[in-house]
């Protein structure tokens, strides 16, 4: 039994070689690990490896393939890559090489101002629109010279998290936002 697992930019091949009760033998990219592996609670595990004690908490992110992972000292984002995920990844790549970027709302909010029109050429750093969310106004800027391919929102409109707002056409891929917000001292 083996899968690919993605962590940061690394994709590792994991293989379960053997299992007897709590004793596991697993290979990660060919390196073998003999582990004492016990479940504490739903999604929470204690692992002893060469007497070292590791605690791993898995918090699912949308389903069973993606996890936010806490260890004692670190946090990670991990994804199990199975057939479906591979298909989606290849499709995503196709889009990207097409030279388009979709600017999406990171959190729910309201579009305060749209500062460009469809078809308009924009400079690097030029503000495309302003989104108001969580007591704060954020400017969404173009990371490089580009063309506004599509405007999917209008002023005053409410948007959901991850809702697409603007489609840009350019090569370099970078998105920045810049916001100020009043917090208490």
């Amino acid at each position: 039994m083996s899968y690919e697992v993605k962590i940061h930019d690394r994709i590792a091949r994991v293989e379960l070689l053997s299992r007897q009760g709590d004793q596991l033998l697993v290979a990660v990219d060919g390196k073998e690990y003999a582990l004492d592996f016990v479940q504490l609670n739903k999604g929470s595990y204690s692992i002893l490896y060469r007497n070292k004690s590791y605690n791993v908490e898995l918090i699912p992110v949308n389903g069973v393939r993606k996890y936010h992972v806490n260890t004692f000292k670190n946090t990670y984002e991990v994804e199990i890559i199975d057939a479906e995920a591979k298909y989606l990844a290849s499709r995503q790549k196709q889009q990207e090489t097409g030279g388009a970027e979709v600017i999406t709302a990171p959190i729910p909010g309201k579009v305060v101002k749209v500062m460009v029109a469809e078809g308009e050429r924009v400079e690097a750093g030029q503000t495309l629109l302003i989104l108001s969310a969580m007591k704060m106004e954020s400017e969404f800027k173009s990371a490089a010279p580009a063309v506004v391919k599509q405007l999917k929102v209008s002023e005053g409109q409410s948007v959901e998290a991850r809702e697409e707002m603007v489609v840009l056409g350019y090569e370099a891929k970078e998105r920045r936002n810049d916001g100020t917000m009043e917090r208490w001292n």
Partner: protein
Amino acid sequence: MIKKVLVANRGEIAVRIIRSCRELGLPTVAVYSDADRKAMHVLYADEACHIGPSPSIESYLNIENIIGAARKSGADAIHPGYGFLSENPVFSERCSREGIIFIGPSSHAISTMGDKITARKTMTAAGVPVVPGTDECITSEEEALSVIDQIGLPVMIKASAGGGGKGMRLVQKATEVKSALRAARSEAKTAFGNDAVFIEKYIESPHHIEFQILADGHGNAVHLFERECSVQRRHQKIVEETPSPILTPERRRQMGDTAVAAARAVNYQGAGTIEFIVDSQLNYYFLEMNTRLQVEHPITERVVGVDLVKEQIHIANGLPLTLKQELLEQNGHAIECRVYAEDPANNFMPAPGRVTHIDIPYGVGVRVDGSIYEGFEIPLFYDPLIAKLIVWGKDRKEALERTRRALQEFKIAGVKNNLKFLERIVNAPGFVLGDYTTHFIEENKEALLKDDPCDSDCEDIVIITAFMEYIRLMEKASPGEMTALKNNWKNYSRIRSVLKL
């Protein structure tokens, strides 16, 4: 004497205030907007009143609704916390007109200190040093230019009604004056409905050090020493400590006396904070007074051994202060880290969402003030501060070691947060040495945002765990498929033994 307290706030500060009321045996009333029906302050208070829709302007800032809730619940006192109506002189005034005790200063003190220019004048009159600059509002560009000519560049242009960094512009070159002035005034107009600005000398390498004061209605006033608040991002404090690593005992005494004099100058009653800007030669200047409880008040509570909310309540009850300046001392060292639901990797964008898991640090020297619980959905309408870690040590070294330990143990899942960013701050060489100014975050930005290196075993074990969990869930979904694997341990070890021969 106060019999029931309405807490006109939300989040960790509302919970914290209710705690002290509970210890005093005072029943409490929480108020909540639509978004906050399940918020911890509602669950924790004895009573709860709905005060309107989610936007603060329609609920937590709605004076009528809050006064109505006090009437309905029979609360005879209101604690405003920080933010919201805490520094609104109209609200303080309204409470006293309604015969409700406002746990805070008079509207006179709030308005005097709330307007920066009036505050400057009052302080100057009281002999409190202020940053060189204008004592009147600047309305024309010519005036601005002539003032800048007098005090010399660099200068800071500030909105008179401002706060939280809005309506502020730094001017370093003469050519920038006009655009900066225009920008500051337009921002001030939008944010505060008032475009009055003033100009101050810009202090390079500044420290932000504030003094906690308490003053009663009987003419007694004391200070409870300082808090070093120079770890800021865009004028928002992130980590505070006390004592300040740069003050000398002598300078501490002077600044404390100045803080008490500043409070007396407005006949202050209650808890308040005098903020100073301090340069590298320890010259200090009055910056502003916060006429309310401060977010970072717990570090003072820890080293001075005082419950500031209880002191506020006693003062509001008209009792004389029992604290004597000569008996107060700073005991050990305390550090506060503010935990925000925000994404440091994405320009600290607020990150609302559902908290799926929390591990809170415990043990010797650790205090946590928070307002979230597992399953709680952090609403997107309010300040993203979700918890404060307050750590004490017998000296700065121990406080730092303990803060590191506690931050490592602190975990929040489900919402993005700045816990890792805080860890990097307390590990940064400048912070460890106590050698930092308000430019600290900006100057160390890159290092503070860098991902930590990880030993590869640890990463592999994370990979294995996720993989095993996935297998377990798949097996549950379609049992049988994987059972073949289960009992081949013996076979495998036999194979390995053979291979080793």
